[in-house]
């Protein structure tokens, strides 16, 4: 039985919800599934992973807990574990962390790697992934001793496939490359959901008029458990930070629901949210490009519509 590994990603010590879809992408009755997680305290994940078909949970430990804050060290540890357990296929999230870790691993192994996969076919070793600003979907065949797949968050609906999960500890003894040193790590806003993995996103564009008005979106987001995004115009005007930008030169997102407020729907904005499950457009201009390519459109003033949405959602609770 071939062994396939899934790299576990956590947020504030818990498995990220979008990770279960990655396991589903790797699920296959023919294969043995291993989950790789950093830190001794991850042994408690076994119960959460059992319903999704993980046979072995490998907790990767090191003499110093700090050593895994070094990205190069993380990559080396994964490679050692892959070697030790004879893992030749690796799955993970195409998150910000995945965009650093997966290519580090692939480069060292000289292995093929495709990021942002929408679907993976393990039998013929092909994947589907968007290219050219999400205007095309490419079928890519990977060839190599190893193969590595980054899965687009929220793309694959998690499916259960219960098995017994056994926990194994893998102690990584390697030393760090002293040519790359982590000076400091400043964690992002605690509790904040990263855009790339959010299930619901409400975004604002030029129609927001200024930075303070984004508070209207924040309030609505809080009620829905959503993250707040923005168009490049809102970022370039200094209203919100670049980490909130959705699009070609911002973050690519794939939420279940995307609400675009005062965003016209440029090609470059669509390049970042085209695979969203459901798109809602709120715009004063009924002819805006976003209106033409959305699921639900309301032609009207966002400054009236969003507060009403927040109010009604609150009332529903």
């Amino acid at each position: 039985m071939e062994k396939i590994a899934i790299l576990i990603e956590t947020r504030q010590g818990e498995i990220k919800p979008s990770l279960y879809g990655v396991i589903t992408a790797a699920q296959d009755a023919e294969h043995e599934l291993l989950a790789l997680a950093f830190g001794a305290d991850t042994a408690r994940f076994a119960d959460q992973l059992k319903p999704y078909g993980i046979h072995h949970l490998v907790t990767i430990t090191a003499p110093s807990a700090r050593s895994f804050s070094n990205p190069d060290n993380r990559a080396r540890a994964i490679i050692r574990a892959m070697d030790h357990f004879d893992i030749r296929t690796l799955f993970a999230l195409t998150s910000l962390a995945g965009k650093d870790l997966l290519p580090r691993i692939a480069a060292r192994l000289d292995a093929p790697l495709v990021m942002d996969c929408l679907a993976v076919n393990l039998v013929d070793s092909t994947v589907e992934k968007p290219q050219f600003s999400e205007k095309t979907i490419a079928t890519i065949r990977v060839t190599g001793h190893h193969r590595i797949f980054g899965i687009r968050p929220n793309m694959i609906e998690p499916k259960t496939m219960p098995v017994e999960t056994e926990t194994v500890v893998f102690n990584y003894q390697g030393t760090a490359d002293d040519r790359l040193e982590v000076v400091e790590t400043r964690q992002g806003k605690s509790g904040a959901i990263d855009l790339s993995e959010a299930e619901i996103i409400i975004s604002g564009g030029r129609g927001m008029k200024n930075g303070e008005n984004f508070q209207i979106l924040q309030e609505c987001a809080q009620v829905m458990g959503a993250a707040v995004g923005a168009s490049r115009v809102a970022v370039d005007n200094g209203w919100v930070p670049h980490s909130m930008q959705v699009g070609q030169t911002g973050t690519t997102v794939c939420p279940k629901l995307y609400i675009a407020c005062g965003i016209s729907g440029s090609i470059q904005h669509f390049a970042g949210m085209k695979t969203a499950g459901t798109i809602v457009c709120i715009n004063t201009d009924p002819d805006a490009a976003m209106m033409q390519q959305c699921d639900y459109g309301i032609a009207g003033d966002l400054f009236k519509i969003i507060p009403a949405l927040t109010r009604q959602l609150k009332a529903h609770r």
Partner: protein
Amino acid sequence: MFDAALFYLRPHVIITDPMNIYVCVKHVPDSAATIRIVEPNQIDENITFLLNPYDENAVEAAVQLKADSDDTDVIAVTVGKPAAIDTLKSALAMGADRGIHVVTGYWPDSIVTARALQAAIIKDGLPDLILTGKAAIDSDGYQTQFRLAAALDIPVATHVGSIARNDNSVTVTCGLEAGGEQVIRMRMPCVIGTAKTLNTPRYPTLPDIIKARKKEIREVSIDHLAIEPPDSRMEIIALKSAVQKRRKQMIAGSIEESVTELIRRLKGEARIPLS
């Protein structure tokens, strides 16, 4: 072959010879271009191509580093079809000193691209710093910088939003999720993948563009670089247009009515778990 020993014996602290900054740039379709699929796995390339937007930040950073120290050479390198020379010209107009074009008859995958970049760079000189965009907007692979660093056996950081140069090292900040940051110090030579937040790329002026015409561009065929053929491959076997089926329903009525109707449809037919 590449002599690693020689590479590291170089005394990086005593900078008597010029500092060499290589900037790897890619020729990519304009994000606004209409993509037409002409063969099962080819697009019609009769569209506007540009210097990859993230690579613009890499060129800008190199040119700024050059402004800080007198003796710096900025060399733009591209791997691609003959038309990619235009992207080198854009980099030269932004202030790179000279260009190297590894000419191919096809668009290679990132495994081959990294090998070609490595071969072209070490054939040309000793890099102190290699800059490139964190991704190319055509293939969104996010990996060439890592493969290049592995081929040269030097450190790499990506998604870099600031660069500070020290004597023989650089300190960079890398973006983490939810607005977090990691500060990393890397010994030179090293590879940096640049993010949009790093700087605002300059627009070349007409005199810049004219001046750039005199700058040297060396062309070398990929076949002359004696690249070892890799065992691994990523091949595009088919392309299709991405069409998302959307409901395209307009919701009318008063503000309150239309919001009520929107919530009803989101929870109902769209099955969104609105808490």
